[in-house]
């Protein structure tokens, strides 16, 4: 499988987020993915991010996998108890999914089904522990499995947090629980990432920063104002404001960030284009990938 092999060979990897549809028409996601398949090592399929109901990660990933694309599925404790999580993980392995990423999941109140009841039977670290247990050939009840799954396991880490000590302690717990690659929230200030990585010396993990495609000045301002932990330098907003073609400038900024991360020795990059997946080829072309 390309992702794990490339990371272990210290080659720069390109991940692209591919939201499954809210509905059953998967054609847009498939065509976007197919258009960049040669440049992208794996497609990260979110598990109902922001608690918005849509096709599940496993289902969306299988649609892409059936087209020969490598995927990273997300598993999250918000909507499934330990039986469902383990059952889906066994199914994922049997269906050929290799990469699994455990995520916390946003609270139900952030989504579009705010009357729903959250599950949260186990937490993120326990989920990582459960994956490790399954890989050892047993389930969470200690019962032997008929064939153990094998996954390349990841999770999330936030280098931009103000509570860095806690974040690193949490990271160490995730590493101990079996996570090997970590995807960050959007990074606009590479210095923040580099500072964080210096703190991680000695840890054998792959940190994959997210490059988020800004779509407008409004979106950039929103990120600046409402997400304290996203360091979004003012120069990016100025560039978009002054650009004759703003969308092209947004793509340019994302592409430059990818190129800069590659040049500075990052393990890879995770591209999030939230609905503008058709811009992926242009971003990658700008980045020279």
């Amino acid at each position: 499988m390309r992702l794990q092999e490339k990371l272990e060979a210290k080659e720069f990897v390109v991940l692209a987020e591919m939201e499954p549809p809210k509905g059953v028409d998967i054609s847009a996601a498939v065509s976007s993915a197919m258009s960049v398949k040669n440049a992208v090592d794996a497609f990260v399929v979110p598990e109902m991010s922001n608690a918005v109901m849509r096709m599940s990660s496993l289902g969306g990933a299988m649609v892409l996998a059936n087209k020969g694309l490598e995927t990273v599925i997300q598993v999250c404790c918000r909507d499934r108890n330990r039986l469902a999580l383990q059952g889906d993980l066994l199914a994922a392995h049997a269906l050929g999914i290799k990469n699994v990423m455990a995520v916390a999941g946003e609270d139900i109140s952030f989504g579009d089904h705010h009357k729903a009841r959250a599950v949260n039977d186990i937490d993120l670290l326990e989920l990582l522990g459960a994956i490790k247990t399954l890989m050892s050939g047993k389930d969470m009840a200690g019962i032997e499995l008929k064939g153990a799954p094998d996954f390349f396991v990841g999770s999330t880490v936030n280098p931009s947090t103000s509570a860095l000590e806690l974040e690193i302690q949490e990271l160490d717990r995730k590493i101990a629980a079996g996570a090997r690659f970590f995807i960050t929230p959007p990074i606009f200030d590479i210095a923040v990432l580099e500072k964080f990585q210096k703190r991680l010396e000695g840890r054998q993990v792959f940190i994959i920063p997210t490059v988020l495609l800004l779509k407008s000045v409004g979106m950039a301002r929103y990120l600046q104002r409402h997400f304290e932990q996203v360091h979004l330098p003012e120069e990016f907003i100025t560039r978009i404001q002054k650009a004759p073609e703003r969308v092209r400038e947004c793509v340019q900024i994302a592409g430059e960030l990818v190129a800069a991360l590659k040049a500075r020795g990052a393990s890879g990059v995770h591209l999030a284009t939230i609905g503008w997946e058709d811009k992926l080829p242009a971003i990658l072309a700008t980045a020279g990938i």
Partner: protein
Amino acid sequence: MIRAVGKPLEEIIGMVQNFDRILLAGCDGCVTVCEAGGLKETKVLGSALRLYFTQAGQNKVVDETTLTRQCDKEYLAQLGDRIDNYDAVVSLACGAGAQFMVDMYKHKVVFPGVDTCFIGVTEERGWYTERCQACGRCILADTGGICPIARCSKRMLNGPCGGSEGGKCEVSPEMPCGWQLIYDRLKTLGQLDRFEKPVDPKDWTSSRDGGIRKIMREDLRI
């Protein structure tokens, strides 16, 4: 009322063994009624701990007190002049009382002395059963006064699952089927038509799923 059971002595010993001066704080509220954390249980626990530590050759101070309620500040404040005489407190109030003590005495180690179980009733002395899960939006008017959230094992809101046998839940033959109780009750009241109306998926935002809950009664606030 809230129902609780005392924690096993070994668990409490495990919590306090590294502390020399220990205060056991009972509560005269719900945990007294269910005989888990009132004056009597606090004194019994105190005696058991003193006996254990004496036999183990450990010189510790274990004192007892009880407060009228631990979920109200004015009663918790009564500990203010002596709480610093102790290294740790074991609160035998419910989880709410123990946490309110933590809020008031921020630098004091507070351990729980009981396991808080549910909102329930006394069937007989020493036999308590659950009646309410405090979902924040009572539907008893539609279910004959019997709550399917608290009394159906599957928390079903639109009738029984089909797994009950002889009026007992499939989870245990000891357990009445909540929906059998509701059906029988509605039949007695001549309100079986209520049973026929399907309800929409429940809005759980008033339950724990909407985040940490609070009540703000403007009419009561000064």
